[in-house]
Structure formats: C-alpha cells, structure tokens
C-alpha cells in the first residue's frame, strides 16, 4: 500500500471539511483564516470570476441568482426526479439537460452542472489541505450520505477526479461518524446507531463494533430531508403570517436566511424576533416567534425521520443484531432540542452527544483515509449497500439481484440466453430501489449483453453484478463458451457532463420553462385542494364534535377560501397554494385527533 498521504473530505450540503490523520489521530485542517468549516457555496460572478466558501456566502445577497448553495441535493439525479418544491425553492435556476440530467443556468448563455459546482468546493478543500500540509495532495476519501444511489456516488467521484483527486473510497457519512466515535473504544463490543441529520440529507445506520471491526448491519435514509426543509417550513409560515405575496428571488433568499437564523436562535432561546428592515421597498417587517411555535412547524419534518429509523432497526433485528447500546447524533440539525426530545420519546434512549455534530464525519473520513494509507492499523470497516439492486423483468417488475443491506463488496450472477435465433444482444435495464414495479425505482442505466449467433437458447452469457466498497456498481459479462470476462458499459444520462453542442436545445426549452412551471404549480395545488376539501368534511363528521366551535369555524372559513379560488377562472396558482397551506395548518389539531382515535 502506498504510504503517500490520503486526505478525508466531508462534502456536506451546507458545509464541507477536510481532515487527515497525524501521528495516529484524526485532525481537521483549518484554512488561512483559521476556519475549519467551508460553506458549500459557489458564486459564479457576473464579471466572470468564481468565488467559493465564505466569500460566496458574502456575495449571496448581492448575486442570489448566481450563487449556488445546497448543490448536493441535485448531484447525480435525473431532472424528472425533482419535485416542484425542489425546483422552486432554489434561488438559482435549475433546468433539465437534453439527456435528462440537471443544469444550473445563469441567464441564457451560461450554465454549470452540479458536478462542476461540487468540483469547485472540492478544489477549495484540496487547496486548504495543501496549504496546511505544505505539500501537494492527490488522493482522497470523500463521504456521501449512506442512502446515496449509484448515480449520486459516481457523480461525486467524478467531481473529485475532475480536480485531480483520486478517490480512494466513497465512504458513507454515518459510518464515518461511527469510526470517529469508536476509535478510542476499540476494545469494547457494542451495537451503535448513528442518527445523521444534516443540511439536506438524513441517514440512520446501525453498526456492530468488535475488536476494531466496524460492521454496518443496516442503513436507511432519505436524501431529501434535512435542515433546508426545516428552514423552508419556517419561511413559508413567516410569509403567511406577514401576508407577503409573490416573493422575488432576493426576497425569498432573505426570508429563508431569517428562518434559519430563527431556527438556530430558538435552539437555545425561548423567543426570537425576526427583523426584516426595508424588505420590500420601504416596507419593513418584524415578527416575534416562540420556540413552541417553531417546533410545531418543524415537527412534521422531524417526524419523517421516525419511520426511517424504525426501518433500519427492523432490518438490523432481522439480521440478528442485539439491542442498541448507544444512539449517536451527528449533523448540524441534531443541535435542535426538538430532535433530541423526539428521539428520546420515540425510542426511549438518551441520545449520545459525544460527537461534534459538524466534525465527526470529516474525522471519520480522515480515519478511513488513514486506514487506507497504513497510518491507522487494527481498524477495519465493512459497510453495506443501502438500496436493492435489480433488473427489469418481463411485465415491468423489478427482480432483486443484490438485496439492500448486503455487505459490500457484493456480487451476484445471472445467466442470460438468446430468446430468438441469431439474436445479437439483449438490452437489460439495471435498477436500484425497493419498489416492486421497475418504473418506481431508480434507473441506473442499460447494459447490452452480447450473444454469439446461434439457434434459440444456445447462447449463454453469465452476467455478474458487483458492488464495490464505494457502493458503486460494475457489470461484467462472461461468455461461458470462451470463459472471457469483460466490463459492460452502463449507459446513464444523469451523470453525463453536458455536451456543449446541445446547449442550443437547452436555451430553446427555457422559453417554455416558465409557462410549464406555472401550469405545474396550478395542477399540483388543484389536486391538493381536491384532496383536502372532501377530507375536511369527513374528518369534521368523525371527530369535529371534539373541537371548540371557533376552531371549526376557522377550518370552514379556510375551506371556503380554497373552494372559491379553485372555482375562480383566474387560476391563481400562488394564491391557491397559500390557501391550501392555511387550510393544512388549520386542520392540524383535527388530524391529530383522528390519529389518536385510531389507536383507541
């Protein structure tokens, strides 16, 4: 093994860090200002230069449309996986590429891919490391959310390679945090769960630690659930309470910054005043929020982590794991008291707060880097694949070949034969996900299995699906007649770095993008109204008598407003959306009563 240094990088949604093992201990490297956290923000300035990190954050208010934050939410995903909310809630413009990937556009003639933005951040971290270590760095361990798919992992790897970093391992974030937790407990035998709620993603992983062997038993997560969603929920409520409509990009960016500030302040204080001086022209706003109010807004988002945890717990139990000795919290959003209280309430376990929420993952990445370059001994990490891998079979079903939570590296073979005489090849769609129908899962790409010409059923090709230690898939075919192996290319669109020759097609599609978007928002709002209105009637009939009269009136009033907007010819999408939101909020207690009644 090469003794040459390997750095560990935590490429986060909100912040990124770089670390290294020095004299047997992992450390985080600081930049020339002495800062360890680099905001994962890049500004493509109108004058042409590119700013990264804190400088980009400073520019965010000046050039919100040219400043890219939380790009991790988009990396390696196809455009059609995005929800309207995800597209809308970004200050910058997100567009489809001709091959179905995602681009970030600054006006008509300039766009970048999420991979390129991530490369800027990685390059910045590489420079931080080189300055701190006073020599060149070319190898890295880069962390990703455990629940990242094959495409998201490949895209992250490509981003690092584009700036001259050889990726020695793509490491799962919660696993990295477990390494940081366990490095000084190598003699212990314990089962731990890592609850990792960051800026944009959530993971829960369960590991067994025994004499230096860290083995992941199960993992579950959501790559679209994090602090950003909390900010958005709070910002939407503030907007509603202040009665401000039709936000500009700069306004919505300011509002979200204020929401985040309130969220952070209310993690320790009981009340917080939001001040928005000269928010719109000369209009200034002020609003006092209590911790209780903000917690009520955050609760539905945090509740989404519960069933994900239960999933991972259930699978660990199926695999024979014992009870959880420690539940370790990492990720910036776990600073929120409500998160800690909810976990205690749900699972009757006191969360372990021994790890630094922002730094544990980077320290773990540094440790894994240390293992791979021989600087850390007696420690071995074995992980699992988060999603089932399969192929599409007859009738559009998914046939699982490597089930989720299989220990990696994993491989499994399938035998294919020609269905008709002299068939040259067979196209196979490779999928990742847990749904029965192929179309509901991630399409990783297509492979062509080549056949030797011959009568029907004569050609026999063994195809081996291998998931390496990075969680990345490789497909090999073996001709059983010749015994020859070769790698099959997986054709995939979302990871492609875009071809400049197709730029023109993109700008043509932009012209229609706005109309499409408005139509899409109206359709979604209309469907939501049509779902809510009858539900309000049924719910009031079932448990309405348990509500005070004024609350019932408030609900009926909100419902009447939705109905009026729905039937109006104006088709005001934004207003209908807001009215739905008000009705949604007004019926919170009603919904809680129904759930309570269900368990009686």
């Amino acid at each position, binding site marked *: *093994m090469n003794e040459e240094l390997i750095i560990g990088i935590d490429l986060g949604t909100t912040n990124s860090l770089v670390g290294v093992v020095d004299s047997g201990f992992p450390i985080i490297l600081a930049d020339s200002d002495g800062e360890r956290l680099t905001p994962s923000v890049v500004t493509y300035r109108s004058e042409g230069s590119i700013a990264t990190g804190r400088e980009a954050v400073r520019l965010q208010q000046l050039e919100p449309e040219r400043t890219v934050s939380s790009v991790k939410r988009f990396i390696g995903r196809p455009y059609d996986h995005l929800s309207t909310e995800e597209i809308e809630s970004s200050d910058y413009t997100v567009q489809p590429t001709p091959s179905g990937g995602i681009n970030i556009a600054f006006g008509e003639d300039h766009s970048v891919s999420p991979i390129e933005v991530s490369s800027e951040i990685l390059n910045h971290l590489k420079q931080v490391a080189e300055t701190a270590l006073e020599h060149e760095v070319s190898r890295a361990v880069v962390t990703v959310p455990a629940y990242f798919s094959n495409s998201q992992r490949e895209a992250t790897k490509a981003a690092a390679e584009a700036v001259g970093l050889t990726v020695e391992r793509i490491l799962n974030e919660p696993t990295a945090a477990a390494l940081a937790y366990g490095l000084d407990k190598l003699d212990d035998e314990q089962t731990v769960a890592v609850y990792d709620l960051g800026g944009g993603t959530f993971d829960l992983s369960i590991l067994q630690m*025994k004499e230096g*062997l860290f083995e992941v038993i199960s993992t579950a997560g959501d790559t679209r659930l994090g602090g950003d969603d909390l900010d958005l929920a709070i910002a939407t409520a503030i907007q509603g309470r202040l009665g401000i409509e039709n936000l500009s990009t700069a306004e919505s960016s300011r509002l979200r910054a204020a929401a985040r500030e309130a969220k952070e302040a209310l993690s320790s204080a009981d009340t917080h005043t939001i001040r928005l001086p000269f928010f719109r022209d000369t209009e200034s706003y002020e609003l006092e929020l209590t911790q209780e109010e903000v917690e009520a807004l955050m609760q*539905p988002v945090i509740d989404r982590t519960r*069933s994900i945890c*239960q*999933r991972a717990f*259930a699978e660990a139990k*199926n*695999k*024979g794991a014992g009870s959880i000795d420690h539940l370790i919290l990492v990720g910036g959003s776990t600073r929120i008291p409500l998160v800690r209280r909810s976990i205690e309430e749900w699972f009757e376990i006191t969360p372990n707060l021994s790890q630094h929420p922002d730094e544990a993952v980077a320290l773990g990445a540094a440790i894994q880097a240390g*293992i*791979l370059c*021989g600087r850390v001994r007696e420690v*071995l*990490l*074995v992980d699992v694949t988060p999603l089932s891998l399969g192929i599409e079979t007859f009738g559009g079903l998914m046939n699982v070949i490597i089930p989720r939570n*299989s*220990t*990696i*590296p*994993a*491989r*499994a073979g399938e035998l294919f034969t020609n269905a008709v005489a002299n068939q040259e090849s067979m196209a196979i769609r490779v999928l990742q996900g*847990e749904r029965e129908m192929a179309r509901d899962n991630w399409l990783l790409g297509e492979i062509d299995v080549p056949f030797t010409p011959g009568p029907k059923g004569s050609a026999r090709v*063994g195809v081996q699906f*291998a998931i*390496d*230690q990075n969680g990345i898939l490789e497909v090999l075919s*073996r001709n*059983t007649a010749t015994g020859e192996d070769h790698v099959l290319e997986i054709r995939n669109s979302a990871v492609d770095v875009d071809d400049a020759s197709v730029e023109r097609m993109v700008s043509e599609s932009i012209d229609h993008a706005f109309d499409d978007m408005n139509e899409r928002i109206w359709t979604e709002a209309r*469907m*939501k109204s049509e*779902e*809510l209105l009858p*539900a*309000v009637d*049924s*719910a009031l009939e*079932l448990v309405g008598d348990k509500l005070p009269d004024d609350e019932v009136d408030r609900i009926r009033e909100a419902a009447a407003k939705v109905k009026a907007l729905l039937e109006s010819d104006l088709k005001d999408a934004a207003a209908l959306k807001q009215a*739905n939101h008000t009705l*949604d909020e007004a*019926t*919170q207690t*009603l*919904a*809680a*009563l*129904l*759930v309570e*009644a*269900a*368990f009686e």
Partner: protein
Amino acid sequence: MGMTNCFAILGLSESLTLDPGDIESSWQAATREEHPDSSPGTEENRAAELNQARATLSLPVERLGHWLQLKLGEFEPNRSIDPELMDLFASIHSALESADSVISRHQKSTTALTKALLAKEAVNAQLAIQEQMAGIHSLKQSIIDSFPDLEKAGESGDFEEAKRNLGQLKFLTKWEQQCQSRLLSLLEC
C-alpha cells in the same frame, strides 16, 4: 464454472445445523485476515466471496438449497404445496391486499388530514399482517427444527424430504418478505 462451496469458503463443516454464531465468527476471522483494506494486495474478489458465503449460510432457505446443490448437483425442484400452506396463503393474500390498499391511498395523499383519515385502517392492516407473520414464523420454525432429520436422511441418500421442505421454505420466505415490506410501509402511515 465450478460450483462454489460456501461451507468450505468459511472453513465450516457441510452441515445444515450450523450455529449462527459460528458463521459470524468464521466470517469475522476471515475478513480481518483477508480484507483488502487490512491486508494490502488481497483481491476484492475474496472479500466478496466471503460476504456471499455468509449471506447464503445465514438464511435457512438459502443454506438448505446450497446444501442440496452440493449433494445432488443440479436437481429438479419439488414444487408441490402442502395443504397447510395453501390455507395460509389464502389468508396472507387477503391481508396483503388490504395493506396494499391502505398504503397506496396513503402514498397518494399529500396532506396530514387525508393521511390521518387512514390511520385507523392502517392500524388494523398492521395487526392483520402481524398475525399472518406469526403463522409463517411457526411453520418456518418447524421446518428448521427438522433440519437434523433431513441431514440424517441425506446420509442414507434420501433427499426427497429435504427437497420438499426447500419448496415449502421458499414459499414461506417469500411471503415473510412480502409481509415485512408491507409492515415497513405501514409504519409510515
């Protein structure tokens, strides 16, 4: 391609009645020794082989299938279904259907209120699935308990009972997985 022997890969005796703890400790010892991260130069292939062997031997249905394959080579599977299983299937099927119906309506709803309206039904579906799983579990366990007998019969060259049990176990395992996946989805309701 020669047939891999998962027992041999982990250095275990070719037995149906392996102790899960022994499978784990053999895998752990071999992984520490031969994992490419701790022993530079070893092939990733070897680690994958160890993982595959453990996965096969840890699941009773896979272990029985692999054992039969080692004893008999390619064999004709026994596809008959016991009447007991037939009865069970009918009730499982209806429990799965009602679970699917709640889950799909829940997935379609976008508001807390419409989801809450389904809560009662979801709780009932969950109870029904749990009941079915208890039935599956006890049948599965009785087959696993018969592994020593299957092994003994095998020593005198009789594999019919093992083949029949493999078929039953495959059905039960599949239903168990289906029930488990519904149960996980119902957690979200």
